[in-house]
Structures are given as structure tokens and as C-alpha cells.
């Protein structure tokens, strides 16, 4: 089990590109409005979640360590 993550999605920025869902399908899902939602912050490995954040074409995803608040991305 890795550390707990806090994942935020800026819905002013999200364009529904779905790259996050591709990299970490158990953590992210597009809602009915085709905006990304976090369905389970521990659904995928930290590596996959960070990969999803890095590859978001509009950088809408922020990832933090839920315990310490340390910002992991960006």
C-alpha cells in the first residue's frame, strides 16, 4: 500500500480529453458532462496517478500527499 493521495481537478480547465482515464482508469472517470472526476484516489498506483497528472494536456490535475500536504504534481 502506498501513501494516501489527495487529487484535485480544476473544472475550469478540464477539457474532457480523457488522458487521465487512460493512464489511471480506476482513479479517474469522466462524468456525464465528460469532465474528469476522481472516483478513487487509491484505485491506481501513485505512479499511474502521477503519470495521468503529468500527461493531462491542460494540466488540470493536482496531486498531494494527503497526510503531509506535500505537493507531488505539478
Amino acid at each position, binding site marked *: 500500500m502506498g501513501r494516501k493521495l489527495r487529487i484535485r481537478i480544476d473544472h*475550469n480547465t478540464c*477539457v*474532457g*480529453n*480523457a*488522458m487521465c482515464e*487512460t493512464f489511471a482508469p480506476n482513479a479517474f472517470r469522466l462524468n456525464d458532462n*465528460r469532465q474528469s472526476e476522481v472516483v478513487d484516489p487509491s484505485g491506481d498506483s501513485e505512479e499511474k496517478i502521477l503519470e495521468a497528472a*503529468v*500527461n*493531462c*494536456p*491542460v*494540466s488540470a490535475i493536482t496531486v498531494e500527499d494527503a497526510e503531509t500536504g506535500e505537493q507531488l504534481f*505539478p
Partner: protein
Amino acid sequence: MSNLRQDDMFTPEVIADPYTYYGRLREEDPVHWNEKYELWVVTRHDDLVWLTRHHELFSSAVFKNDPRPAYPAIDESDLGLYDYVRNYQGDQFIQHDRPDHLEMRKVVHGYFTPKSLEEWRPFVQKAVKQLLDAVEDKGRMDVMRDLATPLPVLVIAEMMGVPEPDRPYIRQLAEKLLYIGRGEADRMKPLTDGMKGMIEYVSPLVDERIVNPAGDFISVLANGERQGVFTRHQVLVNTSLLLLAGHETTINLLCNGTLAFIRHPDQWAKLKEDPAGGARLATEECLRYDAPVKSIQRIASQDVEMRGKVLRKEDRVRWFISSANRDPNKFENPDTFDIARWPNQHVAFGAGIHHCLGATLARVEGQEVFKALAERFPGIRLDNEALEYQPSITFRSLKSLPIHWQ
């Protein structure tokens, strides 16, 4: 619509000012059937977002799936050349739907993440400086010829790993490829010349990168060939996609943005107060206010209902960025150029799974150019007010933009 006097998007009036025509459609008939070119014209922001996010309903394989002839019409003698263009364009990864699109995009996306594109900023800064140094003493330039056209080619040539002495040749080819978005009846000849020239030029580079991969974009595509995702033809046409997609679009951002600043002296003054701090939001507003790409096409994959209209399978559907970006239901005072506008959810780069891969690079180029102009040539003015645009439905392209500052 019968009360639109002339329902033609290629008239000189609509080319000069698309905002009045598409704005009226947006108000009166937001999902509009254009009889002349047999296509649906979608003009509202919310419809555009909905459409781009329902990629399963609207195919991006336009060149493969469009059963209708080229429009505006091309010379009959060039129909064979049009087949060449369809085959060439059809093999680009952006002209694919899921699942193929996803597999292809995965190969290239690492090269285009916001983080990796941001790393091009120092290169862009240096290139902007050199181009502006070259014109500084003259006190004047054609923004199109001297800055906006060469800058993206410098960046793309570097991405492709093209040796320095070959760059003028790549620029010549790039200018021929620009005919893809034009309306002239004889446009197929220069366009196919450019396409064939690119294939000829890039082929030996690909041969070489297959064996000796480097960090450049051609190596990334060659790697996709090794993985079995791309054919050789796809590697070749996707290399020129970089030149097609990254050239005209950036030219238009730089020219249309510069023009917007000159026409709105209050906003120019605002940027000059803080060029480094203001360039980011200002670039977003340039992208919204006079978007580089006016419209993009899809083909309906099945019958779809939108606002009470039934779009039939295989119908052409064009969504108009320039109109969505001025939609009063989305933007306050949409026709006002306001460089502090925020949030600014323009759709200049599209939305959904086909959202522009190069968006960050375009933003970096825009930010660096507007910042440098504000710092170095604060007194820019137009040589003359009369400006002409290319007869294109896809691109918002000036023909030239002569300015002076002395």
C-alpha cells in the same frame, strides 16, 4: 436559412469578418444546414463542447469517411491529386477514431506533455530575439513574413532534427503545405508538391532514426513503427502533420494577436505596463478573440439529433471555434478584447480526446512574442488599415501584416 441573404461562407464579406455571419447563425439557427456545401454548421459554445466530447458520434476520419467531393470545388483535372491528398491526410493519427487514435496518440503524447513543451521556452525566446534583432533597425516588418512564419518553422525543424542548411528548404515545403486550408480551385498542385517533397525529404531521416534513435520527434514516430503502431507511410505523414498543425495555426495566433493589440491601444498599454506578467492571460484572450482556427470538421458516425435537427450518418459537421469563442452565453462582453479576462474557457484548441497536442507550445510562442513586442517595439502601428484574409473556412489567416514602430 432563407433570410441569410447569401448562405456562403466563402464570400469576401464572410472571409473578412466571420464574426457577423456566424454570430447571426449562432443566434438564429445554431445547428444550421448549409445547402451550398452540404454541411452542418454548429456555432454555440455548449454544442461545440458537447460535440467534441462525443467522439463516438462524430468521426475524425474525415478524409476517409467523407463521401462528398472537395469544397470549395477544385479543378477537374486535379481529382487524382485530391485522391493523393485524401490518402495522405487520412493516414495522420488525428484522422483516426478510437481505438486506433488512442494507440497512436500514446506513442507521441510523451513528446507533447505541457511539461516537455514548456522546456522549449528558452529556444523560443532565443529565436524570437534573433528574428526581432534582424528587423529592429529597419523600424518596420511584415509580422507574417519576418516573425510569424519563420518562428514556428525554426521550432519544428529543431524538433524534427533537421540539419541547419536544410531549413530554408523545409520552410519552402511548409509554405506549400499551407494550401491545405485554402479555397483556390488550383490548390491541389502546390499542396501535393509539398506533401511529396516532405515524404522524399523525411524518408532517409526515418531510415536513419529507426537504426539510431535520438531525442527528436521523428525518432518518436520511428519507435511507433518498431512497436507496430505506425506503418512507414504513417510515420512519414505524421512528420509533416507536425509542420501542418504547428505552422499555420501559430502564424495566425501571432498575426491575429498582434493585430488585436494594435486595434485596441488600451489593451496594448495594459500589456506594456507588465509584459512578463500579462503575457499569459493576454495570449489566452488572443486565442479566444480572433482564433487561429475558425472551424474543424467531423463526419456523423450515425444519425444524431441536435437542437431538433437530425444529422444523418455520413453528413459533414463543422463546428465553429470563432463563433463559440464569442458566444454571449459563455463569455461576458464576448466581442470585447480584454487581456485580463479570467476564466477564459475558449475552445481555440478544441476539446475532448482530440484536444490540440501542441497547445502548450503555441501558448509559449504567443507569450514570448507578445512579451518581446511589448518590451522592444512599444509603438507598433499598422502601415495601412486595409488587410486581407486567405479564403479559408478552416483558418483565420491574414495574407500579410505590415507594421512599423519608428
